[in-house]
């Protein structure tokens, strides 16, 4: 099943998500909609590619380690081979001016997609912060814009940046929740 998804999902993440839901929940009934959303929430917090984690955990739950390994191989394998083939083909024609012009256009479109993806990461985080009050919501905007500025203007190491952003938010949220409300 993951192999079929890997072949069909031209255009990336959203296509994979849709196809995976259709296959796992609608047509094969291997997962209920509730366990899908719980699993999907879990894979969002795992580092690396979310869909690899999703294939791994559903494969593991359904048929053990063999299921996990074959799900991941099925998802990554075909995509890996096609990407290598496309990159090799691109290397052959990279010198052609029209190819470079087309590629530049595609990179510009991909940059727009990266803005949309970042918005999709930001907006649920902001909504959660907004329910914690104005200060936390403001901090969320400040940390996001601060990261953009620090990485572009000061070339701050990313690892340090995300660790500081994480700790800052953890500290603020903890302070807000434990100090903001008098204990009963």
């Amino acid at each position, binding site marked *: 099943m993951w192999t079929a*998804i*890997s072949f069909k999902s*031209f*255009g*990336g*993440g959203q*296509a994979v998500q849709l196809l995976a839901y259709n296959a796992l929940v609608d047509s094969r009934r291997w997962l209920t909609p509730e366990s899908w959303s719980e699993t999907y929430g*879990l894979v969002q*917090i*795992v*580092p*690396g*590619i*979310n869909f690899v984690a999703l294939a*791994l955990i559903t494969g593991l739950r359904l048929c053990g380690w063999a299921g996990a390994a074959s799900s991941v191989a099925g*998802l*990554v394998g*075909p*995509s890996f081979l*096609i*990407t*290598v083939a*496309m*990159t*090799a083909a*691109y290397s052959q024609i*990279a010198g052609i001016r029209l190819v470079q*012009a*087309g*590629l*530049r*256009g*595609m*990179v*510009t*479109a*991909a*940059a*727009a*997609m*990266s803005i949309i*993806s970042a918005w999709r990461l*930001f907006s649920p*985080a902001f909504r959660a*912060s907004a329910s914690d009050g104005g200060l936390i919501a403001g901090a969320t905007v400040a*940390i*996001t*814009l*601060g*990261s*953009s500025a620090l990485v572009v203007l000061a070339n701050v190491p*990313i*690892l340090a940046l*995300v*660790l500081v*952003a*994480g700790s800052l*938010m*953890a500290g603020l*949220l903890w302070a807000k929740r434990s100090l903001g409300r008098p204990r009963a």
Partner: protein
Amino acid sequence: MIEPLPYFLIALKASLFSTGALGNLPSLRQDLVTRHWATDQQFASSIAIGQLAPGPTGLWVVALGYLTAGFIGAVLMTLAVVLPPVLVIPLGHLHSRIRHAVLVQGFIRGLTIGIAGAVPAVVVFRVLAAYGYSRPSFLLLAASLGLLTTGRVPPVGVLTLGAVAGIVLFRT
């Protein structure tokens, strides 16, 4: 000359501390470009190929690995993005217990917005900047954003339109 082990560790670090398809890009770019193991041009090409290829967008690093270090590079990059998700297994057991812990929630939220801020900034102001800025490229960026926000054109359609527009606008 690229050394395989540091190359792999750089990729693993980038993937371990990030989320989302291009989340590992800022860290990879910082480490690989300063070592002269990759160029912004190679990053640009990899992002485009990765978006066009089927499968999770996160596999764009396969193209980056291939362009910078050949087939071995592609394999190392793939391992680096496939291994961290294995953490889903221990996290799955912990998740129900720690999901509501305020420090965990806060840390994940902070990390997520840090990545959300860094990724588009690096793509627009570093990778795209490698081509130089011009009015047509801003217009194309704005038009692609507009099309994507309507949600009526699938990503692969926007990429194709981008390619056609690129050929028209940037061929000289």
